[in-house]
């Protein structure tokens, strides 16, 4: 049987094609590969499931080994509700299987991504937003690098209320030429009191931060940074911006973060994409490595065409002379986030934010005295302190609950979104009470 994925493997066609080319066998095409490099045996791979139904059965058997539970896991990947329309659009063959066509044949991709960045721009009150990079980690790394290049400096003050994995990524990405200094965390969970001097390229703040704490001193930090010729870079989850002030409102120069919350499933870490945004300030725009899509006029008055803004910045245009690099990243999640924001609109984003704020607070109240930073404003996450974090989580697991992400031996990070009903929260609280 000819494999369904390989039409020209059919022997008759194969023979006709070889005849037309004028060679005897496919082997001839490989003549340049020296014998010493040739694999003399078949690959040692598992026997295939050629029949689709057998593959499906095999896969379902594997998936059955995964267990779901009532989950309060967050820490960078969040269980927000994904509207059905988001999946409908991002599973369309035309979007899912396209790649890098030109603005003519892939007008839809250009326009959809333009609409994504434009909606992000409204949410962020910034004029320039990139076509997504891989994830919020990369976005933070690149945003900081942009600040370093822009200022010509090599030192950055980073919040220590930051995901340890993200910090690991920043170290890997930055540390060969950029000094990372960690800012302390105050008792209330906010960014600590700091000083900087003129050697700093940027202050990197997150809000809500690792602990779900909403930072209240953004303007102060912006002023501090600007007073020393540095930039304020703020990492924030756009899902909070229906209720929280966007970084631009308190003077941030660059905003960045992950958009997984905006219509992507958690997918075991597969739903991430990163945004970076600035105002329309040419020297800063020049530092974006990502593609930027913009409207361009066409031969027909009033018609919208699209294309790359300031393409010369990129490694596509100038290889290592471009800014960092650009390549395939996470465009489809950008399109999806655009669909999400269009479904929600301004009121939906506001209501969603209010629901999350209220339910987070409800959960903090329900859990009572074990909650850390109880006095701060929290969005979606908060930390609890218990004698034995691992023991608590194990106990909750037995009760069908993933209680949170363990931050250290005594600390657990609990995540509450709009998908957690009041009853879910009550169930968590009751289970914790039972265990402690």
């Amino acid at each position, binding site marked *: 049987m000819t494999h369904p994925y390989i039409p020209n493997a059919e022997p008759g066609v194969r023979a006709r094609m070889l005849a037309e080319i004028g060679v005897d066998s496919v082997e001839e095409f490989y003549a*340049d590969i020296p014998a010493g490099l040739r694999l003399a045996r078949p690959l040692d791979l*598992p026997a295939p499931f050629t029949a689709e139904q057998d593959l499906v059965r095999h896969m379902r058997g594997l998936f059955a080994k995964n267990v779901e539970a009532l989950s309060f896991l967050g820490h*960078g990947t969040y269980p927000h509700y994904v509207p059905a329309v988001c999946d409908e659009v991002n599973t369309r063959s035309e979007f899912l299987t396209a790649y890098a066509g030109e603005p*003519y044949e892939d007008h839809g991709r250009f326009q959809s991504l333009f609409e994504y960045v434009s909606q992000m*721009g409204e949410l962020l009150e910034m004029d320039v937003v990139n076509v997504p990079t891989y994830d919020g980690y990369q976005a933070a790394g690149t945003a900081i690098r942009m600040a370093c290049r822009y200022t010509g400096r090599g030192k950055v003050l980073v919040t220590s209320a930051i995901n340890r994995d993200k910090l690991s990524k920043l170290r890997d990405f930055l540390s060969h030429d950029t000094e990372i200094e960690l800012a302390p965390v105050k008792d209330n969970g906010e960014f600590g009191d700091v000083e900087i001097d003129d050697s700093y390229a940027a202050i990197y703040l997150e809000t809500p931060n690792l602990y779900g704490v909403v930072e209240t001193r953004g303007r102060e930090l912006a002023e501090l940074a600007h007073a020393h010729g540095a930039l304020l870079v703020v990492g924030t989850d756009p899902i909070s911006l229906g209720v929280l002030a966007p970084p631009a409102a308190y003077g941030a120069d660059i905003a960045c973060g992950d958009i997984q919350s905006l219509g992507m499933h958690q997918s075991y870490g597969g739903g991430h994409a990163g945004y970076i945004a600035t105002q329309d300030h040419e020297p800063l725009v020049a530092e974006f490595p990502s593609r930027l899509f913009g*409207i361009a006029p066409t031969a027909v008055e009033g018609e919208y065409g699209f294309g790359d803004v300031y393409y010369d910045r990129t490694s596509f245009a100038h290889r290592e002379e471009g800014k960092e690099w650009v390549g395939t990243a996470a465009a489809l999640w950008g*399109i999806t986030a655009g669909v999400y924001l269009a479904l929600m609109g301004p009121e939906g984003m506001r209501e969603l934010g209010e629901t999350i704020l209220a339910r987070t607070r409800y959960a903090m109240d329900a859990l009572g005295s074990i909650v850390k930073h109880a006095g701060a404003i929290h969005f979606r996450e908060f930390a609890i302190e218990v004698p034995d974090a691992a023991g608590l989580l194990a106990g909750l697991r037995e009760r069908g609950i993933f209680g949170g992400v363990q931050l250290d031996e005594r600390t657990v990070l609990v995540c509450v979104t709009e998908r957690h009903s009041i009853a879910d929260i009550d169930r968590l609280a009751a289970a914790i009470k039972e265990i402690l």
Partner: protein
Amino acid sequence: WDEPIIFELSQPGRRGIAVPEPGAPKVELPDSVRRASKPALPELSQLHVLRHYLRLSQENLGVDLNIDVGQGTCTMKYSPKVNDTFMADIADLHPEQPVESAQGVLEIYHTLERMLAEISGMARVSLQPGSGSAAIYANIAMIRAYHEANGEGHRDQVITTMFSHPSNAACAKTAGYEIITLMPDAEGLPDIEALRAAVGPRTAALMITNPEDTGIFNPRIAEFVELVHSVGGLACYDQANANGILGITRAADAGFDLGHFNLHKTFSTPHACGGPAAGACGVSEKLIPFLPGPVVDFDGSGYVLTTPEKSIGKIRPGLGVTPNIVRAYAWIMSLGAEGLRTVAETAVLNNNYLMHKILQIPGASAPWDKRRVEQVRYSWQELSEETGVHSEEIGVRAADFGVHYWTSHHPYVVPEPFTLEPTESYSKEDLDEYAAILAHVADEARRDPAFVKGAPYNSTVHKIDMTPLDDPKQWAPTWRAYVRKHLS
């Protein structure tokens, strides 16, 4: 469809989806953190959001809709629909849920790692990188960590080749390396003499593709690797173009120390308008300690996560782009060893068949008279000199017939380039049709160059004036910028 920008469809008060009421007391925010005015997002009913995006989708091509052989180096193969159906099965898994509750997905990671190790001959493979370029960067990070661990942190040069993907140069540069780029020799292959001149005590690594984007297999690749090894450098293989050599030759066979695959190229995961993708970094024994952590191990009773001793650390959220890990796993499992070899052989057959057809078109050429593996970088130089029509313009005109092509990365070492890579997915009839379209357009260019230059005629939009996109005063990277600069 002549679809407006979504903001133009907005009407106050409309909603696309409802959000649950809090069910708990409202939290009052202080002014310092409260949003002052609501964001000017569009307001549409659900049907209207859907209709808008469905219409936009119809204004896009994809592997499923067209003969997508024109995005050379991108390996636009068929992504089986059945593999997409598995996405629902992993949608609600959290990357930090307890490992004992994620044994199925971890088994997939582990088995895929083993299979890619076998395919490349490498000892271990990290599936963490979010794309090919991210894998290149991870490889560079491992190279740096390796040299530093060996007290050779002074090595500050990375050598690459002009026909390797720009990310090899750009990622290494970002990581702080000086870049040395080998140009092609008269044979179209990277110049080994230039390499000989370049290597030295400062050499950290060679980052090289083979076959390069020309489609020519470098038969002296083992010598390249050896030269780099001889000065203490590492050899890193960009296997973006592996589709034609699966089961034929392996990275390890040529002595590479590390390398990467693009799962969205060779292993069929969909390109998704430019990601999410997935990269896989394969390393030899000596680089295992430096792999991004964690990796998936089998401890005899179950799958566990461990972080290698000198790991470069976590490089993205979660273990990797799991949807694509699942798809790549399923794809290999549906083909097996024999199937992969048939993939390679058929891809190469298709490429040589298409080349045979293209070279019959007057004005088209394939610089360097060599055998090709997986793709060919062609040139319209002759046609262009004759007619004044450029390759980009021919590509735009081809779009009028429902196909397109990519020229090549800059700079255009091959003049007036176009790069075709037919993979194993397309039929002989597809290739015949594709070649016939190009032949037709080439003929048009000869008969009426101005007509071809005026294209497109049958596209969603008409000829675009790109100049404002490079002018800070005019560019409009968002709607709000457009409104400010052009509508007010």
